[in-house]
């Protein structure tokens, strides 16, 4: 895995960019630095401003205020046909009247590239995306996955400094999606082109992205590598957005010198322990979050607890999903938690069934704590 430090850090620099439509602010003072050769994912729900930001980089939307520099050149006021970026559209936007070959050649023809060179480069691209034998077909004679690859080839053939991808896998079904993700990453590493990917799918962002910028209501909330966002989100919104969470609302009772907080939950007789490096005051209202996979379930309720947070509960439902099993357990204090267990070997935890009394545990350092 590449480390973000190895990039030329300010290859693309977005400085305090705002986009307004009348009174509505679609993108609100966003600043970002994206490195050369990086896959950067803009992750957010609909209306978060991620697509608007992408379209400003592509030159399709005017910037209301601020500036975007690509390799030190401003995109401000430059029409899209003069920018060194190419875009892969969500709908792929393949030209229906042209063959696959002509679709890929379109950008080179507009540049006035010599005929022979166009031929070689188109053939090269088509073989890169494994579509050489489809060169003479029209887009409507291809499957969704093949069309996606044509769109990729067409956008890459001009060797842009940056490739913008708008929901690149959104139109594909699940199996194809996973396969395509890795294919996309392989091609990117091969060509070394900077990718900026817009997506609403957190799994996609985490798989593809070297770094992710999470957007909400026009603002960037946190930027970082996937692991950092998932394990140390600086905001409850991000924690929620990146996956299923168990929440515990409560107040700090005490904090020991080594950073172990004792938290009394709101309205119920239950304490949880969290280790944190952040300073918290006593009696401060907080939300504690624990990812389902950080919790562990044991069939023996009377066993000796091995972690700081042991609780007894009753299994209310089990969903076996193959690679993992999801348990919902109602703890004695009345609160429900979701736990996932990897099925690391055949018949793992097969002795647990619904209505069983079980022991749930998680370590103090596996939870996050947010002020509220």
């Amino acid at each position, binding site marked *: 895995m590449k480390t973000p430090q190895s990039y030329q850090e300010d290859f693309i620099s977005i400085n305090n960019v705002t986009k307004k439509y009348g009174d509505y602010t679609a993108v609100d003072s966003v600043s970002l630095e994206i490195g050369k050769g990086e896959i950067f994912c803009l992750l957010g729900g609909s209306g978060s401003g991620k697509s608007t930001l992408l379209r400003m980089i592509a030159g399709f939307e005017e910037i209301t205020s601020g500036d975007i520099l690509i390799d030190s050149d401003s995109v401000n006021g430059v029409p899209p*046909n003069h920018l060194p970026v190419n875009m892969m559209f969500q709908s792929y936007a393949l*030209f229906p009247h042209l063959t696959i070959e002509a679709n890929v050649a379109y*950008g080179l023809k507009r540049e006035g590239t010599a005929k022979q060179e166009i031929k070689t480069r188109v053939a090269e691209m088509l073989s890169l995306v494994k579509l050489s034998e489809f060169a003479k077909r029209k887009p409507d004679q291809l499957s969704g996955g093949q069309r996606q690859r044509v769109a990729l080839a*067409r956008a890459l053939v001009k060797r842009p400094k940056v490739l913008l991808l708008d929901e690149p896998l959104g139109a594909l079904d699940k199996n194809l999606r996973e396969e395509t993700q890795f294919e996309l990453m392989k091609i990117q590493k091969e060509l070394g082109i900077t990718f900026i990917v817009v997506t609403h799918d957190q799994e996609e962002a985490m798989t593809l992205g070297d770094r992710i910028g999470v957007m909400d209501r026009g603002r960037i909330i946190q930027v970082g590598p996937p692991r950092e966002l998932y394990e140390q989100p600086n905001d409850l919104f991000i924690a929620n957005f990146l996956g299923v969470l168990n929440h515990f609302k409560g107040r700090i009772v005490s904090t020991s010198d080594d950073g172990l907080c004792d938290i009394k939950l709101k309205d119920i007789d239950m304490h949880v322990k969290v280790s944190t490096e952040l300073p918290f005051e006593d009696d401060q209202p907080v939300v504690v979050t624990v990812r389902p996979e950080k919790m562990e379930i044991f069939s023996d309720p009377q066993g000796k607890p091995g972690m700081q947070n042991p609780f007894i509960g009753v299994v209310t439902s089990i969903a076996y999903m193959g690679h993992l099993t999801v348990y919902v357990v109602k703890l004695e204090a009345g609160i429900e938690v979701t736990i996932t267990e990897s099925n690391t070997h055949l018949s793992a935890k097969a002795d647990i069934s619904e209505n069983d009394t079980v022991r749930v545990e998680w370590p103090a350092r596996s939870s996050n704590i947010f002020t509220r």
Partner: protein
Amino acid sequence: MSRFLKISLFAGFSFLYIPIFILIFYSFNASKRGAVWGGFSTEWYGKLLQDQQILDAAWISFKVAFLSASGAVIIGTLAAVVLVRMGKFRGRSMFSGLVSAPLVMPEVITGISLLLLFISFKEFLGWPQQRGIATIVIAHTTFTAAFVVLVVQSRLYALDKSLEEASADLGATPFETFFYVTVPIIAPSLAAGWMLAFILSFDDLVIASFTSGPGSTTLPMLIYSKVKIAVSPDVNALATIIVVSISLVIAALAIFAFKNQKQEH
């Protein structure tokens, strides 16, 4: 299908097509008097082909329809692109209203206003010296362009905007995008608009009457002047030929549109 629907269907078709069938029927009438059946004959069709006056008028109508349909497609397409792609601009709704005004304007008024226009042009610019094919073409272009706008506009609204964006993104100028992407994709609607304009122009009597001059009698004008005296069987034969050829054009159009639709999905 219920009985009611069957009867409705039958009644509807009868209402629309019985007059036309009667016309076709009488075009094969051997009798010279319109309403009396004198046996089957194709002599009127033969006479038609020898009537230089009718052939001249048909040729004029064809030229006028061809030229004005072509002009209308160019002007109408540009107007449609402006309306669909330019977004909001000052005077947009006025422009869109003005573009479609000829659709609802009584033809007599369109005819008179164009006549006045040509007269005042002659007064101030010295052109046109006399009205003829050129003035009819201009007049027909004006009123058929409105129909082309409608046809092309609806196709443009359905066109995925990202296709044009993709073209720009790949380095095409707006001009190149229009000719290499937009026009080829909307070509079927351009063809449909052209044929519609052609038929409208070919059919038109009122506006042509106002804007024509000596030596530019169109086919509808000639037919009208003939039936003012009496409905003669040769007019029936002529009308039959027109009906059949227009039906063929429309059938071709429908097949074309159907094939195109199949290709798109």
